[in-house]
């Protein structure tokens, strides 16, 4: 394990505390944070099956919408606790992902990406069409606030919970990556026949990883709707799923924390970049290309290289090394 890898979780935890303190009660910062969490959870979802398992399934606008609409529909049509919408959304989106995975099991690469993107587009059209369920083009607006044990859950509470969820999801995937399941999943991505011949079902691995990804997408949708108090067909367009595809590569695909780093960068570039109007997404696109061509391990990989170089530099020029060097030098 590299020096940076050992410190990733404590550094991420420290960053989480700093971000929570920075967001505070500022509405604009809360918007930034929730956008970052949405991108982050979608990217982590993609990480679970695309980066680890080489299944380029990208219908994330559908999974996020399912999570958001589950909350909206439950709020408007029932008196049940709105927290129930979270497991309901996760189960429905995972079921949709598994069904889509079963029908597209034989596909890989851009063939799979194309079909799942078209599914995402068809799902977006269905959201507008199904006025009776989704409210059609007007979407659903939350008519009551979230409560937990009788206390009101404020926007700030939700944003903090969303940030903690993002941290836990990245930490969980980091653990999963090195677990027997994660190792089998990664091996499936590289050599599916070898995994199949060792008695592990590659189909089951793919479907489980797709379900995990879709579940994370639904969680993102739930938070998005809960914080914004509404869910519309255009809340999470297909372009978001398309953008999210690049986030793990930008941040660094060798660790789920890379997806979080990428989500921070894309939020900063597409939402908060004010130095040159309207070019944030272009800057992101160029950054992705530069990283893919010149720094294939992403920003985290680049940071690791810089740290390793700095450590080498300190060791070479540091006092201990100088003493050692003086010690072995022959006396004049």
């Amino acid at each position: 394990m590299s020096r940076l890898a050992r410190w990733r979780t404590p550094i991420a935890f420290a960053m989480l505390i700093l971000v929570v303190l920075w967001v505070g009660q500022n509405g604009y910062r809360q918007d930034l944070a929730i956008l970052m969490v949405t991108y982050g959870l979608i990217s982590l979802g993609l990480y679970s099956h695309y980066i680890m398992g080489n299944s380029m399934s990208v219908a994330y606008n559908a999974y996020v919408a399912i999570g958001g609409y589950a909350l909206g529909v439950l709020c408007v049509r029932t008196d049940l606790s709105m927290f129930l919408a979270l497991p309901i959304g996760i189960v429905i989106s995972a079921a949709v992902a598994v069904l889509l995975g079963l029908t597209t099991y034989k596909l890989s690469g851009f063939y799979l990406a194309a079909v799942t993107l078209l599914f995402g587009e068809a799902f977006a059209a269905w959201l507008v069409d199904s006025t009776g369920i989704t409210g059609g083009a007007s979407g659903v607006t939350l008519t009551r606030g979230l409560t937990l044990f009788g206390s009101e859950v404020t926007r700030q509470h939700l944003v903090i919970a969303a940030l903690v969820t993002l941290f836990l999801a990245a930490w969980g995937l980091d653990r999963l990556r090195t677990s027997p399941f994660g190792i089998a999943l990664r091996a499936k991505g590289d050599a599916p026949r070898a995994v199949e011949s060792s008695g592990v079902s590659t189909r089951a691995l793919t479907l489980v990883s797709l379900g995990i990804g879709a579940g994370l997408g639904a969680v993102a949708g739930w938070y998005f709707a809960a914080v914004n108090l509404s869910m519309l067909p255009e809340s999470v367009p297909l372009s978001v799923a398309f953008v999210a595809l690049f986030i793990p590569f930008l941040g660094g695909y060798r660790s789920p924390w890379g997806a979080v780093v990428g989500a921070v960068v894309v939020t900063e570039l597409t939402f908060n970049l004010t130095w040159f109007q309207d070019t944030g997404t272009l800057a992101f696109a160029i950054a992705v290309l530069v990283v893919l061509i010149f720094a294939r391990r992403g920003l985290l990989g680049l940071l690791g290289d810089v740290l390793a170089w700095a450590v080498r530099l300190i060791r070479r020029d540091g006092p201990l090394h100088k003493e050692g060097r003086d010690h072995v030098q022959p006396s004049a």
Partner: protein
Amino acid sequence: MPIELVVPTLETGCFFGLIALALFMVKESAALFNFAVGGLAVVGGMASSAITVGHGLPLVLGVLAAVAFGVALGLCIEVLVVAPLVKPGGGEDHHVVMALVAGLFALQQIAGVAFGKSALPGATWMKGDVLDVGKFVVSAQALIEIAVTLGLFVAIGMLLRGTRLGRQFRSIGDNTQAATMLGMPVRRIRLLAFASSGLLAGLAGALFANRAGVAFTSALQFTLFGFLAFVIGGAANVWGPLAGGIGLAFLQAFAIYYFGPAALTYVTFAVAALFFALRPEGIFVKRVRA
């Protein structure tokens, strides 16, 4: 389906066919899918519209700009994106695929920044009707679009089948590693393939922009529909992409006519899922003598 819808559907099919042909050129010679074609078509269409409709300059300048942008950006993609990543033996690597998809995304954003975020209306190449028999009307513009598409398919078919350059294209695409060992100009052919892909996509964008205007956000959809047309038609010969494009356009037109506009996305998804799963090699398949 009413007869008056046949010609507009054929026009759409020609557009899909040209985008699929742009994919075919690179797939045939470099064993890669140039997913950036949608972005090249958008840049071509928007550049042509900005010059002709926006600045009132002659049509020929708009078309030339679309083609020049297409060729230049196609070459840029090869030099800046593909060449640093592709392995000596060729073929599709995970990173090359992602880089080409990122290229599509970058071109889309470049078009948005350079030509604006609103859809631009395309220029009409020629006004008036050529044929008017009852409900069956063929506009001069439609005739030009179909004629230019057919002309390009015939020219590229002849180039690939009947010339030494064409044989080099096909042999490198079939086995890049063997072609490299035989000393064939692999890099030069790949550059030519990306340039021709850019030319076709840019021209397609300029030619068909007048139908519904062109917006920078259309790039992904252009690539998806072109890719679908390519898969439906197959890569057996140069006519596969055109057959795939026309087939896809008629399926979409049927769906919209009988089931409403939303059916477009449902039918496109169903067609993609069925073809990719059951017949990923397409309708026309390469026959090899045993």
